[in-house]
């Protein structure tokens, strides 16, 4: 990659970078030698080695590739909103080497056939790893068990119900008991649907002022409590997705201290924005769960800092522009977030909300350990890497984004953090591939 050449040889040497291994250990001015898709040497040994190509990473951070536990690529079924090519390339630009994709495709990923369809599509079109999450219930309808064991055999990494939830607690309890039989991870977004009802904004100051239909905090916390109790009783490995309330973080910490096997994630936008983002009726910030109060945001940030929240996710949800061009309540929820996620995180680091090491942990070893993957930089590890310059800036705009969804959280303002390249198994996923 000296000059503008894409990395193509059998070996690559990266020198002069600040190496963060994802576990909190940091080495300034380090070097890596990558050969045949693996880390062949680190530090001095790498420095001295000969390689086909080399990259001067001075000023850059060398990190394990990022792992996203909650992403939507929109394929199969929603090609107008995004596709395997556009969205995986957007993810690679964001430094991601692995994305776990929601079962909310069309058709729903509740059969081996759909799982194979996603994996085959990724094999052909994706420069990064795509790991499907299977449906927990058939058709995501929350009524009948899916073929969980078969889905796992076909390559699903976990089972979940996407944003649809499971209304019936008896069904949920049985889903957990069945998943527990096979040791599967159950990923659930906690939302009590009868309490959330038709809401589309946090039930708080801004919804009171603007007359928006609120989703009360208790719509999430009541569901968290129910899920934790059911997990405790069934012994299932529960992962709570996309927390939005400070109170939920407390409940997760408490459950862990009592020995319940629960992990949790939060979307980056929940760490950055609050309900105030809706004060101009900006439909980009129509999100589910909604952006909540500043106190919630701070509690979520603290949850990441203290490790109660294991992973930071993109909750990437691309849409065609028409889906966001209507009065706020009539728009569809979701942000096109994966390309600028690192940049938003670096702004939080600049403001001292958490350290760079804590950010990287939330993007690498944290999510990897939730789903039993490895995301470290060590001798002979698979070379899934992200090399980024935290001081360089770029400006997301409708024209410059790769994702088919142009509703990024920040547009037309320079952001710190440019990914110089992303490697998957030593192969260049960004900017080449």
């Amino acid at each position, binding site marked *: 990659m000296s000059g503008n050449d894409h990395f193509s040889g059998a070996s690559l040497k990266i020198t002069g970078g600040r190496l963060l291994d994802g576990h909190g250990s940091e080495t300034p001015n380090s070097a890596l030698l990558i050969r045949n898709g693996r880390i062949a040497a680190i530090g001095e040994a790498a420095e001295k080695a000969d390689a086909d190509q080399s990259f001067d990473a001075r000023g850059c951070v060398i990190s394990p590739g990022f792992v996203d536990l909650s992403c939507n690529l929109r394929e199969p079924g929603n090609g107008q909103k995004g596709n395997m090519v556009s969205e995986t390339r957007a993810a690679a630009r964001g430094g991601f080497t692995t994305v776990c994709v929601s079962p909310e495709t069309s058709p729903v990923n509740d059969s081996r056939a759909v799982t194979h369809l996603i994996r085959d599509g990724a094999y052909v079109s994706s420069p990064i790893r795509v790991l499907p999450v299977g449906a927990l219930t058939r058709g995501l309808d929350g009524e009948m068990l899916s073929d969980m064991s078969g889905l796992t055999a076909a390559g699903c990494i976990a089972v979940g119900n996407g944003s649809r939830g499971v209304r019936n607690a008896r069904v949920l309890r049985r889903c957990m008991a069945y998943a527990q039989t096979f040791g599967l991870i159950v990923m659930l977004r906690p939302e009590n649907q009868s309490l959330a009802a038709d809401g589309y904004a946090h*039930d*708080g*100051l801004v*919804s*009171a*002022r*603007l*007359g*928006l*239909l*609120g989703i*009360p905090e208790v719509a999430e916390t009541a569901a968290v409590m129910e899920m934790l109790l059911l997990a405790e009783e069934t012994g299932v490995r529960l992962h709570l997705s996309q927390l939005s309330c400070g109170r939920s973080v407390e409940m997760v910490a408490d459950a862990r201290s009592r020995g319940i096997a629960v992990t949790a994630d939060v979307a980056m936008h929940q760490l*950055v*924005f*609050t309900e*105030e*983002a809706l*004060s*101009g*009726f*900006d*439909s980009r*910030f129509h999100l589910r769960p909604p952006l909540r109060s500043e106190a919630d945001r701070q509690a979520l940030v603290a949850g990441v800092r203290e490790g109660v929240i294991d992973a930071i996710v993109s909750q990437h949800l691309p849409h065609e522009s*028409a889906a966001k*061009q*209507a*009065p*706020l*309540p*009539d728009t569809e929820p979701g942000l096109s977030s994966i390309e600028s996620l690192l940049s938003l995180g670096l702004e939080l680091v600049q403001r001292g909300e958490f350290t760079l090491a804590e950010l990287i942990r939330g993007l690498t070893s944290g999510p990897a350990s939730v789903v039993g993957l490895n995301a470290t930089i060590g001798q002979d590890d698979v070379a899934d890497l992200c090399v980024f310059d935290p001081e360089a800036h770029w400006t997301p705009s409708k024209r410059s984004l790769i994702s088919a969804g142009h509703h990024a*959280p*920040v547009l037309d*303002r320079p952001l710190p953090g440019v990914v110089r390249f992303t490697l998957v198994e030593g192969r260049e996923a960004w900017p080449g591939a």
Partner: protein
Amino acid sequence: MTANLASPNHLQLTRDGQLRHFLTLDGLGRELLTDILDTADSFIEVGERSIKKVPLLRGRTVVNLFFEASTRTRSTFELAAKRLSADVLNLDINTSATSKGESLSDTLLNLEAMASDMFVVRHAQSGAPHFIAESVTPGVAIINAGDGRHAHPTQAMLDMLTIRQHKGGFEGLKVAIVGDILHSRVARSQIRALNELGAEQIRVIAPGTLLPKDVESLGCTVEYDMAKGMKDLDVVIMLRLQKERMEGALLPSEREFYRLYGLSQDKLALAHPECIVMHPGPINRGVEIESAVADGPQSVILNQVTNGIAIRMAVMSMAMGGQMAERQQKQNEINERGLA
């Protein structure tokens, strides 16, 4: 941290602080609100002439874009536009385009092609006029005639005009708003206007199910007991109770609501003897207000309707003035650049 977004004021005010749209009272200062009231006062006289017309909007086209049914608001907007000499087109969108699946953006494109100068918008969704103001071509003024639960700024301003006529001003006033605050765009705009204009006390009187969360943050105090809430009041504003509120488990029955929160003569007697009674209409007699009170000497409900025309004339002429000033300013800038 909040998103870097255009506040409503970037949208509704020109660089010189003149109105160019009228979407919400949020962010509008006391001076501008007083200006609207004073302008409306000058238009009241027009309504008393035999020829009730002024030529301020002559040659302009005003489109009443009503996505939600309304008789009173639409007809006062229509009269206001006609008294300003505008051409008026009434469109009841509820029954035409959107029911054929046309999106709001497409409807707007079609209407813009008719070279309209102003849209008066009523919509069931909060924020719809903001969306329209952001989407339309520059130069077209948007007036909010009520959006979802968000705002009904002309209604609130006509209420302020009515209060000022009867009480002389806002200093030291104790005002209560009674009933379904949760679903009321009128109440949100009234609370905002009363705070800005300097009322001493703003009370909201309602059961917990009809109040938004954190309602105090809007600048009011909550009173569950109407008898306590009526004490020393100078102004009591009753809100309309929609029948469907019984179905959503918000209230047990109309009868119970009337017993607790209906404005009867007995309850009115607890207020200041010169307390005025207001209601944005249409009223539900025997649900939120007793007939004897609605028709009684303290009621100013019909004054409100008359004032509605004057307020709408004021807002329409001011917004059109702001749009014209902005156009002129841009033209001047182009000319200057051309000369330089």
